[in-house]
């Protein structure tokens, strides 16, 4: 049983781990002003902590009005997608040390959705697009008494897209979505993919027709922003390409 990494880590922890970091946050509260503005906060933080920990330090010790969503704090619930140093990430999955804490860390709301207050956006249009692609299993005929059978290979076929946590990091990183909020956006397509390629499902055709729409998959310009943004490591662009191909070949 080797322990090298750990010993290094523990040595590092023995010295004082705290450094001073500046958070530069895009503030907006229409109860106070119609204008958004940047505000700087300085905090002491261990670089191994998360950006979310930094936001909590600010909210809890310096300014209780700072507003953001969060729940699980380990990248599972999808509450805290935000633009950190210009890139979409989950605040709870981004460690301070990984984003160059020597410079001010900029934090702002994700783009393309209406900002309600500070880092909180209106998620309704995002969830509406999701609901529009029929994100549920559709089957015909009688229900079997036991489980439906599915081979491990068939299960693997759509594994990647089952990982989505609906955080909107992908959709709100997409330039097409920024320009036209009508576009379904990558997350909705990912969730359509999850069912189109599920061997148990029988509504692939319908979902493909929905995505064949003028606001559907053909708007995708393959910029790969979404794949880079996905905190779950889903190959989003690849999933969109597979849906496009399925639309052409009608095979899936």
């Amino acid at each position, binding site marked *: *049983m*080797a*322990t*090298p*990494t*750990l010993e290094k*880590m*523990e040595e590092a*922890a023995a010295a004082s781990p705290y450094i001073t970091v500046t958070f530069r946050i895009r503030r907006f*509260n229409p109860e*106070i002003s119609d204008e958004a503005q940047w505000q700087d906060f300085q905090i002491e933080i261990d670089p191994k902590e998360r950006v979310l920990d930094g936001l909590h330090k600010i*909210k*809890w*010790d310096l*300014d*209780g*009005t700072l*507003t*953001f*969503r*969060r*729940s*699980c*704090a*380990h*990248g*599972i*619930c*999808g*509450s805290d997608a935000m633009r950190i140093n210009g890139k979409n990430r989950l605040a709870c*999955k981004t*460690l301070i040390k990984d984003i160059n804490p020597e410079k001010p860390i900029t934090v702002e709301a994700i783009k393309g959705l209406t900002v*309600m*207050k*500070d880092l*909180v956006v209106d*998620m309704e249009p995002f*969830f509406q697009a999701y*609901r529009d692609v029929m*994100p*549920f*299993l559709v*089957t015909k005929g009688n229900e079997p008494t*036991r*489980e*439906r*059978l*599915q*081979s*491990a290979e068939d*299960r693997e076929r*759509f*594994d990647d897209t*089952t*990982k989505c*946590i*609906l955080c909107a990091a992908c959709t709100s990183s997409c330039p097409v979505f920024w320009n036209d909020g009508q576009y379904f956006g990558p997350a909705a397509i990912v969730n359509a993919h999850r069912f189109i390629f*599920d061997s*148990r*499902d029988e509504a692939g055709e319908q979902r493909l027709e929905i995505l064949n729409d003028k606001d559907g998959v053909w708007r995708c310009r393959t910029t790969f922003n979404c794949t880079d943004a996905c905190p779950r490591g889903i190959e989003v662009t690849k999933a969109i390409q597979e849906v496009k191909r399925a639309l052409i070949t009608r095979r899936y």
Partner: protein
Amino acid sequence: MKIHKYDTVIVGAGGAGMRAAIESTKRSRTAVLTKLYPTRSHTGAAQGGMAAALANVEEDNWEWHTFDTVKGGDYLVDQDAAEILAKEAIDAVLDLEKMGLPFNRTPDGTIDQRRFGGHSRNHGEAPVRRSCYAADRTGHMILQTLYQNCVKEGVEFFNEFYVLDQLLVEEDGVKKSAGVVAYELATGEIHVFQAKAVIYASGGTGKFFKVTSNAHTLTGDGQAACYRRGLPLEDMEFFQFHPTGIWRMGILLTEGARGEGGILRNKDGERFMEKYAPVMKDLASRDVVSRSIYTEIREGRGCGPAGDHVYLDLTHLPPEQLDAKLPDITEFARTYLGIEPYTDPIPIQPTAHYAMGGIPTNVEGEVLSDNTTVVPGLYAAGEVACVSVHGANRLGTNSLLDINVFGKRSGIAAAKYSQENDYVELPENPAQQVVDMVEHLRNSTGKERVADLRLELQETMDACVMVFRTEQTIKTAVEKIAELRERYKNVSVQDKGKRFNTDLLEAIELGNLLDLAEVMAVSALARKESRGGHYREDYPNRDDVNFMRHTMAYREVGADGSDSVRLDYKPVVTTRYQPMERKY
């Protein structure tokens, strides 16, 4: 203030709430009020699996499962309820599969199953494969699948609505549920929901501990709302400490890791569980493993400079197996610790994980106002409830099962009740208590800060009522909590606005945690025995003569308005299994 009228209102959209909603929406006009968007609920964090004796990979049956549940719960389980849980488990899993849940599969294409702590063949002979799973993201898949089916059924959600009060009205000498009062995050507006039936499915209360696997939002709001209105809370002293949380952070590493062959080791590399549980070893029940870890640490065999943790060793497992079966938790180790689990062991410590206690219900999910009386129109299911299927210690994979079985049951029962009954008239000024609470906090100029009190509470709970407890430590906790509750009266918030005022809501959540912490500590102090998750060093043995009974805690309000906890007890339902010594 707005008033809404629905047949059935469900508080919470985690696994239990959405499973209930799928049933009740088909049968009655239903609203689901949830403080988080449904897919943000903490059910999504569950990793390891959901138990059911499908017998897909080896011989198994529901009776063995019932026995393990009863034994795992150290005989404080109501055995009639455990039997329902184990029997209905099979359909609960099959229901989810039919709804689309992508379970891992066997080579035959059936649902695959794996080992989990405390689940055994033939009453403890050897570990059995009973946990149905989808990699190490079973909870995520359950939450997604249930939300997908809520979309399919057209379930009506009120997202980011915080339920803060339960309306009870006395009619013909009987306390009945009239509805709930909620606070809308986006606007600060207060809403009254009049409903014939209300189901609480608002989850656990782990945030009163510091090192915990629970989300920031698990603050026991449902338990607190009912408790403040005079309803009892059952078995609150029983809290589960999961053996393998990431050192200092508390993020969970599923027991499935040990189910796949992972081993716990001390600083000498010794597989110490062999000493404490010769048969089940690393897969003994959670309370046993957590105590063993702390025993190692206390006796100087902990790892690291402070000797304050042990290792979860996965290095002997093939990387392909880790990638296929445990992709998320290995990623947690990489992301949060910078450790590569293929080659390095992961530092872990026990983490506060699961509330066995909660709002007492019968097997239909009906809430009890004392040992036997049902509150008409009031239901609870999931971690907020205490049926009690988990007794003094819940087995891994039995909670995802619980939320499905009792979520479904309560959804059906509540909808039936609302079809057959009329509205109870709302009390005068139904929102008064919530309005007062919100206004008090918004206008307070007190000097106490929420973050300070919360941290002091969490540190007290970690130090005094965690894995090991004594009269002394619990008394310290009781005193400290009393002090914090006093100081809480002078808490103020900085955000005075209406819009998305999370500052205000954190203050309200802290109030809930403080009330529930008091109930927990007082209940723990009175239980002078050790059983399951409640371990008293001063009373290290189980005492069936005096304590084979559920604790029922009530809030008593004195003439001067001050409140205290009154304890009563309720008998345990025993059917097939007589208490035996628990060995693993």
